[in-house]
């Protein structure tokens, strides 16, 4: 092997070794404070532009609320986070989804001081600004009143349509169930939402 060939092999061997190890072995972690009120984290999502969206809720007599925080750019810098109170009052759980266009959708369950049921709101544009969030819409579904974590989940499909699953209990049928909620357009109108039952369990022992 000529000297130049040896040099080339040496170089490629080193490069391969470096590249094989680099992706998994060395992540550097930094962090920034999002909210000093603490909070129970419901979800975190990135959008396609690298923005971060966090849905969380706080409890307590004075500051119980569903809250949203977002950041674009250096998200380990606390100054780059914007916070919005979406709904005041204690809640059971909440779920967040980010659509392909960067729209943000939120489903909230059972605020204590409001009609019991499910609430929905969404934002497109600058979601760190409170004025870009419409007041959450009461969808109804009062039978979804189980006291458990992760009672529902929300996603947005490729056409920007929100879809959710939710667990509930029907006291008349003594039945635990899972419903699939969906809306195709004008989703800030309660009439636009429908549901289908995808699973049902009679005689749930601990309900």
């Amino acid at each position, binding site marked *: 092997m000529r000297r130049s060939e040896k040099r080339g092999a040496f170089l490629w061997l080193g490069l391969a070794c470096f590249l094989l190890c680099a992706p998994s072995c060395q*992540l550097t972690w930094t962090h920034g404070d999002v909210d000093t009120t603490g*909070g129970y984290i419901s979800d975190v999502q990135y959008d396609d532009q690298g923005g971060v969206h966090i849905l969380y809720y706080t409890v307590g007599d004075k500051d119980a609320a569903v809250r949203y925080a977002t950041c674009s750019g250096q998200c380990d810098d606390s100054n780059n986070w914007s916070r919005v109170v979406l709904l005041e009052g204690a809640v059971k759980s909440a779920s967040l989804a980010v659509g392909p266009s960067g729209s943000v959708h939120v489903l909230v369950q059972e605020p204590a001081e409001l009609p019991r049921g499910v609430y929905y709101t969404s934002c497109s544009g600058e979601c760190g600004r409170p004025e870009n969030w419409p007041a959450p819409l009461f969808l109804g579904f009062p039978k979804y009143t189980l006291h458990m974590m992760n009672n529902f989940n929300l996603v947005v499909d490729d056409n920007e349509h929100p879809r959710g699953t939710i667990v509930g209990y029907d006291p008349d049928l003594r039945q635990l169930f899972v419903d699939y909620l969906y809306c195709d357009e004008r989703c800030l109108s309660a009439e636009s939402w429908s549901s289908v039952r995808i699973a049902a369990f009679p005689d749930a022992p601990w309900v």
Partner: protein
Amino acid sequence: MVDHSLERNGTAYVVTYAYSRFWPPSFNLLSRYCLGDCTDPSNWSDGPSLPIGNCDEQGLQTFCYRWSPVRIRSDGSAAFVGTKLDWGTGVPVTTLEYRSYVDPQGSDFSWVEIGQDLRSTSLALTRPSSPDVAPTPRIAALSEDGLTYVSCDYGCAQVANWHRQLVDPLVVATNDGGTWPRIALNSSQLPGIAYKAIASGEEVLRFAPGSNAPPPWGPATEAAASVYGVRTSEKAAEANYMLLGAIPVLAGLLSIIGRIRRVHRRR
């Protein structure tokens, strides 16, 4: 029922949940999935049903298993991660389990136990640009040390192929719902974790992005290990691999520069 989830992958959705119909409870992880128009109930089918056993004789079964949402891959396969709480010896032992299957029906189901000191997990799967490349798991979990990042790049059925880093030691370590971290990946497949920590005696909501920025080297390595929480032995091993690759690269580059200079001198 103790948990359920919904995931989007084109027109495929999967719901998964644990459920017991009898007393004493005998838990099964059940799942339903939909391909096509999910607003039509007839398009929903049963997915995997996995017995997960009687975990507790004292009625504390609710948290025997705690599953992350199912993550669906582009080929229809799926993965999820959970912690099993075992009271068999009287001392609770949590075991982190990673489970995966190759299609929504649950064929070729496999699982691996990753560690016995991790709990409160959140899972994300990478989305490779090529369909020929398998997605790989990225997990945020709590350990006795604090917020921990766990990952695997290949051969994820082998526990030896899993790696972990301590992200932040200042994490609330109780087992209430609010302390569960949540992980997401950006478009470059780098992780970000939202979690609750304690700073100066106050609970704060934090976000930690992971990046490929080079870590401190040399005398700062031990400090970096404590700041970033990487176990020193793992850090040393990783550094050795990196140096193993970096030394010949530098040598080759210096050699090329020398050759260019010699050519210039001749002119």
